[in-house]
């Protein structure tokens, strides 16, 4: 039942580099897009911050621009959905709404020492058992603790609930509707929420040292949280999803065993594991998939590959052998194969499934035969091999093999890579016709909450294949290549010393 007569859903995608607003119609077609970048501040090496007010201002701007481009008024919107960069931490005054510090970005590593101390003191296992996550600098809880320790007077005010914590979604909803909430997917990235009860966990709060009074209410990912005030006069804010979770929804991976991988600067593979959280013995993250409405949540296994698109950008900007990112494909196509060389981009260590912070990057198998084409090829192939490692870990944890992989993100424009990915994974790889799966996921969740779309089957029917790559590599070649890749990986570890 539609409570508003609007024929469109708008999606706010607040990402690491920029904020965007996309407006969709009921056939999930993009009607308009507006985008605005925000600044990154690097006060010290390894520190990454944003200005929360700048982000909020940009969000308002892009929403207005998107509506204007489509010649729409807010009253024609049925709902507003929110998706955001995960883990980035904001603290603000309850009374005034003013931030007490810059937002600390998910890539920021200032909590490194704190994380190691927590790990030593309590053991990784205790955190993993409750949250599905390792204690790592990405996650919000330690960032909050850092701020409480380093900003004078903050802890007292936080204890009294005068200072509030939120990931970006909470910050946006606070400014839109005046409510302090978050959804299960965002909460699951704080190290403060119990994965099984879906609520803040006293033991975790105690270990990390964060007062309950400053925490938002945890809600499902699809529900009417409130109405947007001011310029958006009454539009229901009806979904919140961390970006990778939104992509899972946008790709309509609603059944257990369905998986998607978003190939961007870094890549994230999420596998829907159904109503039960699956423990990982292979270094993957157990996390929420989504929770649509008041029903049971859907869990997921997540494997993140830190350096994929970023490697191409590094190749372009630091090495200078290509003028633009797409040219990597042109250069790689000048040779038939990698010529025997392998590139393991462990720039900040190895992540899923190895988790070796003492590893650094390696190019192995070099001979006088190797030319820049082979290097370009190795750069692309690195993404595929890393994906295979994550998929194998997932198959082991989940107990059944992945049958196909849905992909999205910028790097899906690279045909050479996508074909190689299919060859290496030995399953069909497919790309949907709406590439904007993150924004679409938030729109879908919001639309479901207000009845704009009736149910998840309707969403599945909107998913259409835009391209498909089928495996062509023969088994022997694949196995040999993989063996060499693993040798290259083995050569990355044990690099960082105590005195580095």
């Amino acid at each position, binding site marked *: 039942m539609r409570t508003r007569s609007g024929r469109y859903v708008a999606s706010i995608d607040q990402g690491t580099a920029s904020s965007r607003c996309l407006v969709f119609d009921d056939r999930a077609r993009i009607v308009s897009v507006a985008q605005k970048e925000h600044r990154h501040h690097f006060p010290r090496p390894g520190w990454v911050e944003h200005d929360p007010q700048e982000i909020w201002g940009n969000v308002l701007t892009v929403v207005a621009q998107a509506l204007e481009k489509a010649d729409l008024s807010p009253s024609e919107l049925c709902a507003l959905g929110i998706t955001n960069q995960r883990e980035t931490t904001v603290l603000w005054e309850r009374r005034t709404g003013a931030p007490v510090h810059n937002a600390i970005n998910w890539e920021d590593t200032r909590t490194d020492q704190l994380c190691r101390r927590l790990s030593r003191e309590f053991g990784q296992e205790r955190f993993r058992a409750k949250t599905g996550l390792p204690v790592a600098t990405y996650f919000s809880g330690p960032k909050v603790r850092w701020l409480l320790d380093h900003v004078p007077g903050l802890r007292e005010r936080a204890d009294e609930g005068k200072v509030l914590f939120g990931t970006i979604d909470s910050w946006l909803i606070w400014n839109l509707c005046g409510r302090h909430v978050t959804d299960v997917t965002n909460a699951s990235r704080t190290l403060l929420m119990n994965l099984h009860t879906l609520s803040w966990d006293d033991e975790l709060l105690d270990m990390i040292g964060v007062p309950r009074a400053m925490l938002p209410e945890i809600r499902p990912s699809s529900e009417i949280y409130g109405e947007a005030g001011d310029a958006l006069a009454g539009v229901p804010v009806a979904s919140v999803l961390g970006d990778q979770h939104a992509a899972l929804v946008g790709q309509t991976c609603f059944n257990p065993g369905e998986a998607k991988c978003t190939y961007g600067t870094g890549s994230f593979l999420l596998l829907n594991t159904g109503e039960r959280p699956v423990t990982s013995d292979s270094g993957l993250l157990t996390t929420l998939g989504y929770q649509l409405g008041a029903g049971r949540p859907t869990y997921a296994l997540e494997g993140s590959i830190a350096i994929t698109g970023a490697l191409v950008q590094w190749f372009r900007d630091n090495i200078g052998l290509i003028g633009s990112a*797409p040219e990597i494909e042109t250069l790689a196509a000048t040779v038939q194969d990698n010529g025997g060389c392998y590139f393991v981009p462990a720039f900040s260590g190895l992540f899923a499934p190895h988790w070796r912070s003492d590893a650094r990057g390696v190019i192995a198998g070099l001979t006088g035969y190797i030319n820049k084409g082979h290097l370009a090829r190795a750069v692309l192939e690195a993404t595929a091999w890393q994906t295979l490692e994550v998929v194998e870990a997932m198959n082991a944890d989940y107990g059944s093999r992945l049958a196909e992989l849905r992909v999205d993100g910028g790097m899906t424009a690279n045909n050479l890579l996508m074909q190689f990915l299919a060859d290496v994974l030995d399953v069909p790889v497919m790309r949907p*016709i709406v*590439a904007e799966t993150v924004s679409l996921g938030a729109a879908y969740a919001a639309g479901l909450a207000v009845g704009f779309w009736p149910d998840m089957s309707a969403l599945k029917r909107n998913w259409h294949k*835009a391209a498909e790559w089928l495996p062509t590599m023969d088994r022997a070649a694949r196995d040999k290549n993989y063996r060499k890749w693993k040798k290259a990986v083995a050569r990355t570890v044990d690099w960082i010393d105590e005195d580095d």
Partner: protein
Amino acid sequence: MPGRIQSIERAAAILRLLSGRSRRLGVAELAGELGLPKGTVHGILRTLQIVGFVEQDNDSGKYQLGAALLHMGSSYLDGNELRTRALNWADALATQSGESVRIGTLHENQVLIVHHVFRPDDSRQALEVGSLVPVHATALGKALLAHHRYLAAEVAAKALPSYTPGTVTDAYRLRRELDEVSERGWAGEVEELYQGVASIAAPIDDRRRVIVGAMGISGPVERMCEQRRPKAELVRYVIEGARAVSRELGAIPW
């Protein structure tokens, strides 16, 4: 008009011709295209060579853009770059038209498919990226040829292979059709490559107003045409889609 230096204008015209293609050109070809004596063109090319804007290929003796110019950021548009920029628009065209979308560029007298979006009906389809199709028997080809008339003349001078009874095999007919294509801004093809299949395409130009590729849709005649002419609504989608990609590449919208 006072103040315009003729040799610079001619040099600019030569550079434009060399920057819009995926192959090299010889003095005779350039002279023919510009309607100038070969000696004049040769003189300009020599100076362009000296300043590094043009290079001569040792084997063929033909000319191409030189490194100095390429380093100024005006290299020809890489097919992979074109695909990346066009991705969202190609998807949108497929959704809007309900047909499969292809983007092609000129490659050695044929059309190279640099992007292919499936018909969004989840039917079994094979990705055609990397395949080559004939320039005279496809809408993509005609859209490209209409803006590369020297190549068109060269293609027409050789025998034009026939694929169906409808394939254009006559040079004069092809030229007339290309005149129409260039005037109205889109090309059509009805059962000229495959029986039962029709296609519509429009050119894509970039910041330098050089035609860098073409985008089009292709599908069964029954859906694509009305009385054997491409449907106006579909033609509009294709033109708008190609225009959107051109805008994306920096061409001034018209």
